[in-house]
């Protein structure tokens, strides 16, 4: 894995559990030894350094607050280790407590705090000494949904105020999309794509990322590229494509197997027949208030679409689907890389 984080950047390492993202973070922190490779912070090689020499700070998923110390002692612990004078410690603790709004909790023990408060204390402890690099290992995953959304904003705000280079590990794509300057997606121990959130969403590098990012997930339909006929055969229907596409597919595809990816919001659903539309049958509809998710069957394929909330759709009703060919993603059948 080769990954460079820019100075002052907020980079999110995103991936399913067990993909190696936490291990990567722990290697950067010095808590685990890489079996090979080099790690640099700034221009300094830190591969063989102890965690304490790296000038990093880290927020753990469990917060790892010291249970036998008060909030104040927890927050000032990094300063105490560095033998900062007492008066300065007090001043900095007050500053941090102000920013994080935990001023009235300073004398409490961690066990007397709520999840959100613990989270703030953990953030405070990491931020108090202005580290070179700020690491966060799924810091929001132990909070309830409402608090998570709130803290997401708070952390983003803090980052823009303090400008500390940050690496944030999560398996939650919403957190990644909302907070990141750039997202690095990992799977199976490998870096799959490193790009800005919008680019990841609109130009996924491969089939895995296309399916991983976005909710509801991208429709993924397997098909065959018929070179001679200039058509894509998707079992249930055949898609005629224009010259330009034909040339690209001809050049880029390694075989005739391919996947077609279409985001649910790019699928148009019509209750009345359309000549070039694909005939489908409504399987189930899920109203969400501001929009509605319609799941339809085309032959053996399941297609999900986002439609207007007031669209009258019944189960088993016949509908016709169309999609904008500019919004369609084509992935190679064997390498799974994005072709178009």
């Amino acid at each position, binding site marked *: 894995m080769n990954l460079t984080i820019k100075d002052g950047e907020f980079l999110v390492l995103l991936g399913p559990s067990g993909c190696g993202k936490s291990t990567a973070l722990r290697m950067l*922190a010095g808590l685990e030894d890489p079996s090979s490779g080099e790690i640099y912070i700034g221009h300094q090689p830190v591969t063989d350094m*102890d*965690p*304490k020499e790296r000038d990093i*700070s*880290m927020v*753990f998923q*469990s917060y*790892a607050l010291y*249970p036998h110390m008060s909030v104040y002692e927890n927050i000032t612990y990094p300063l105490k280790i560095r033998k900062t004078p007492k008066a300065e410690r007090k001043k900095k603790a007050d500053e941090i407590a102000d920013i994080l709004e935990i001023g009235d909790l300073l004398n409490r023990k961690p066990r007397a705090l709520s999840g959100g408060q613990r989270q703030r204390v953990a953030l405070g402890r990491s931020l108090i000494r202005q580290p070179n690099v700020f690491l966060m290992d799924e810091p929001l995953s132990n909070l309830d949904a409402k608090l998570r959304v709130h803290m997401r904003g708070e952390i983003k705000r803090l980052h823009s105020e303090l400008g500390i280079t940050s690496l944030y590990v999560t398996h939650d794509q919403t957190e990644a999309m909302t907070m990141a300057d750039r997202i690095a997606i990992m799977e199976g121990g490998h870096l799959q794509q490193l790009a800005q959130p919008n680019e990841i969403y609109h130009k996924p590098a491969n089939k895995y990322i296309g399916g991983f990012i976005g909710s509801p997930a991208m429709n993924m339909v397997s098909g065959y590229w018929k070179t001679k006929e200039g058509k894509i055969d998707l079992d249930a229907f055949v898609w005629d494509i224009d010259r330009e596409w034909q040339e690209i597919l001809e050049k880029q595809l390694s075989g005739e197997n391919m996947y077609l990816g279409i985001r649910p919001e790019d699928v148009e659903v019509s209750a009345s027949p359309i000549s070039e539309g694909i005939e489908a049958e409504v399987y189930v509809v899920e109203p969400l208030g501001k929009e509605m998710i319609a799941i339809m069957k085309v032959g053996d394929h399941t297609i999900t679409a986002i439609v207007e909330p007031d669209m009258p759709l019944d189960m088993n009703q016949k509908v016709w689907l169309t999609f904008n060919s500019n919004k369609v993603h084509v992935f190679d059948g064997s390498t799974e890389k994005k072709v178009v």
Partner: protein
Amino acid sequence: MENAKTGMKAKRLRGEIIRYITLFGICLIVLFPIYWMIITSFKPAGELFASDQTFFPQNFTLQYYIDPIDGVVSSGSPFIGFFLNSMIVASVSMIICLVIGSLAAYSLARFELRINKNDRLSFAILTARMLPPIVVIVPMYLIMQSLGLLNTHWAMIIVYTGFNLPFVVWMMKAFFQEIPPDLEESAMVDGDSRMKAFYKIVLPLAAPGLVATSIFTLILTWNEFLFAMFLLNSADMMTLPPGIATYITQYETNWGELTAAATLAV
């Protein structure tokens, strides 16, 4: 419905009563010798061997407690000396045990051996406790003899440390495994070395375990008779268990002094 409820209650009450009676009976059996020891230590010599034994001393005496302090002891064995010897041996070996044992336990709890055999190593440590002490008493005697440590406190400290270490390692290992590793990792990221994180974060959290373990080792050492009997032979070096045994002489047993000393030792 109401009947069934009271029936249940009565049944539970009966169970409770039976349980307490049983417990009381067991306590009686266990505690009686100790009670007898204590009252014997307060009985004057005449009463000790009287034909009608009483459950409480008729003529209360503190003679056996005062005599050793004045040094007037028929057997010539200084109780205070035994007591001090026991204190020195037990506390020094306990401290060494805790220092070595908790460090060993911490590494077993946190690190994997390169050959992945942590469980076997833990087990190997425990094997030191598997031989009955009587089996190793002769080799131990010869080792101490060749080291020139016979009849010294060091001999006892070394033996007790060796025998109690496995207990300390196993008990402390369990305590350390309960403490999430995130805590010391966090301390290390905050700027501590591994050793400092252990000392400042992990040890305070394992304090209840440390106390329990130290009491445990203290009791084991305090009561140990066999090694002390063999490795110490002069009265001024003896710990309490063999020391008290010296009240039993070839010709007579000084029951009063013996029980008084034993009462104090307990």
